[in-house]
């Protein structure tokens, strides 16, 4: 009997392939698509002038350029002469909001607005300020947009499609183009760059938030609706707590991205460290450029770390009230 069962088991193991439905074949469409993909990739590499041999030949030149950057020249960062501190104003009075005579306060203001942002440290701080201000403003716009542009929380399907359309359109405009637009409108400087970051980030954050809203657990929404809650209460008590971790992550991630973006916006005169970096490279002051790049790397790493700690602090803490 036992032996009989064993043979049957072995038999059924062999026959299981016959018993199972035939494995669906991939069909000719699969190979056509695969070939299309390969052709497109070949086309892309061709268009990008991809020449590995030239890269290998160019490696020594990379080393030479990097060598010219060494050692980084921090003299402009460290030397107090390069900051053109206004005379007659002591350091504490310059740095802290202390009362000053009218004449001196004008000088102080001029230094803060015009002189300091031209220095490496000043431009770096300006880069952070642009990213912070732009991201913060964007959060306010993206927050309602995210709910209006999510299929499950939008008040009306028409509004949903309209907002999606506008957001997708604006998001395709590169921040450099937005920067040029705002430089033309409000003049050179950090304000133009901040506006560019603000507009672009609003649409990106709005899109990310709406996708997060669409992925929530609808059961909680159902439960809160069943208590007799209205629209805004359902958003606050069922949707928001579920998307809050995502919202914080997205915002901090965009803040980091915006610091990089803000440093590029300097190229078109929209404020930030990019202008100084570009000038140093264009005038072959590689050692100074290296110093700027290092300051920027330090800055981005500091922001990465801070946002990581911030995220852990907020996301892992218990309920808010």
């Amino acid at each position, binding site marked *: 009997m036992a032996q009989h069962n064993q043979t049957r088991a072995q038999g059924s193991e062999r026959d299981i392939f016959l018993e199972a439905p035939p494995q669906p074949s991939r069909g000719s469409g699969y190979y056509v698509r695969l070939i299309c993909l390969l052709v497109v990739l070949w086309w892309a590499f061709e268009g990008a002038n991809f020449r590995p041999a030239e890269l290998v030949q160019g490696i020594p030149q990379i080393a030479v350029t990097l060598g010219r950057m060494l050692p980084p020249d921090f003299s402009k960062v460290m030397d107090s002469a390069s900051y053109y501190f206004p005379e007659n104003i002591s350091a504490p009075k310059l740095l802290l909001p202390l009362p000053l005579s009218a004449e001196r306060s004008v000088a102080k203001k001029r230094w803060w607005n015009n002189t300091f942002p031209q220095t490496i440290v000043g431009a770096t701080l300006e880069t952070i300020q642009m990213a912070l201000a732009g991201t913060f403003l964007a959060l306010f716009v993206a927050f309602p947009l995210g709910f209006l542009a999510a299929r499950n929380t939008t008040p009306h399907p028409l509004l949903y499609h309209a907002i999606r359309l506008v957001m997708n359109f604006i998001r395709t405009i590169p921040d450099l183009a937005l920067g040029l637009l705002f430089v033309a409108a409000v003049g050179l400087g950090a304000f133009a760059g901040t506006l560019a970051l603000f507009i672009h980030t609003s649409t990106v954050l709005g899109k990310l938030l709406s996708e997060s809203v669409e992925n929530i657990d609808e059961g909680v929404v159902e*439960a*809160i609706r*069943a*208590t*007799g809650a*209205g629209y805004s*209460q359902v958003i606050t008590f069922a949707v928001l707590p579920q998307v809050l971790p995502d919202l914080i992550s997205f915002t901090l991630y965009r803040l980091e991205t915006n610091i990089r973006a803000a440093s590029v916006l300097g190229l078109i005169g929209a404020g930030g460290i990019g202008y100084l970096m570009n000038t140093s490279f264009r005038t072959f002051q590689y050692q100074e450029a290296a110093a700027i790049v290092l300051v920027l790397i330090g800055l981005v790493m500091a922001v990465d770390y801070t946002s990581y700690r911030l995220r852990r602090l907020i996301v892992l803490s*218990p309920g808010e009230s």
Partner: protein
Amino acid sequence: MNILEVRDLHKSFGPVTPVLRGINLKVNQGEFLGIIGLSGSGKSTLLRCINRLIEPTSGEILVPRALFDAGDNTALADVRHLKRHDLRLFRRKVGMIFQQFNVVKRFTVIENVLSGTLGYQSSLKSCLKLFTSEEKHQALSNLKRVGLLAHAYKRTSDLSGGEEQRVAIARTLMQRPTIILADEPVSNLDPKLSRVILDILKAVCREDGITAVVSLHTMELTKEYADRIVGLSRGQLIFDGPASDLNQGIVDEIYREDSD
């Protein structure tokens, strides 16, 4: 006296076979009514039609207007035709318990319980999460009733499944409900915990005079807890009576797979 009457209720989602096909059901005040049926028999849809989380296709859902409106005491109201404001008033008197508990895991236990008062709050005040000390007092005493007072300030995600369902019961009690609809409240719990939850649910309903309509997936638990049982099969009621009237033929009919 009937606290709820469902007349000829139909529901279909699109052109496929209707989920509910002419349900007629009277619910007596204060009873613990058990609904039994296979998955897909329409239990969840029926319960959600009652508080209009799902809009019925046709039929009537009659409740005394006094259930949610302090004014006119004698008239009946058809839930299907309630306007937005009245629907809110109605919903806050009808608690609901879910199979998946549907509590906010990131909130503390007491925050989840307090969200049961939302039907009584203005939008602005509740969006800022401003609750009065009476409401907090009420929340704590409801947590005590379900045996979770010690966990009041814990994060809900730190609780077990059975405890989450007790949070959901406390949340529903905050509504000061007249009726509780429970959609498979113990399907995700083991048999022992199932009894703990059903004991609590039945006790609070009896103490507060709440009418309960509870769908359950096992005949055993239904017979044990329900005052009256209705059997649902393919969108139609095929049994309505006390547990003692259930015979093997009806049980087989309820559990029969599709074979028209």
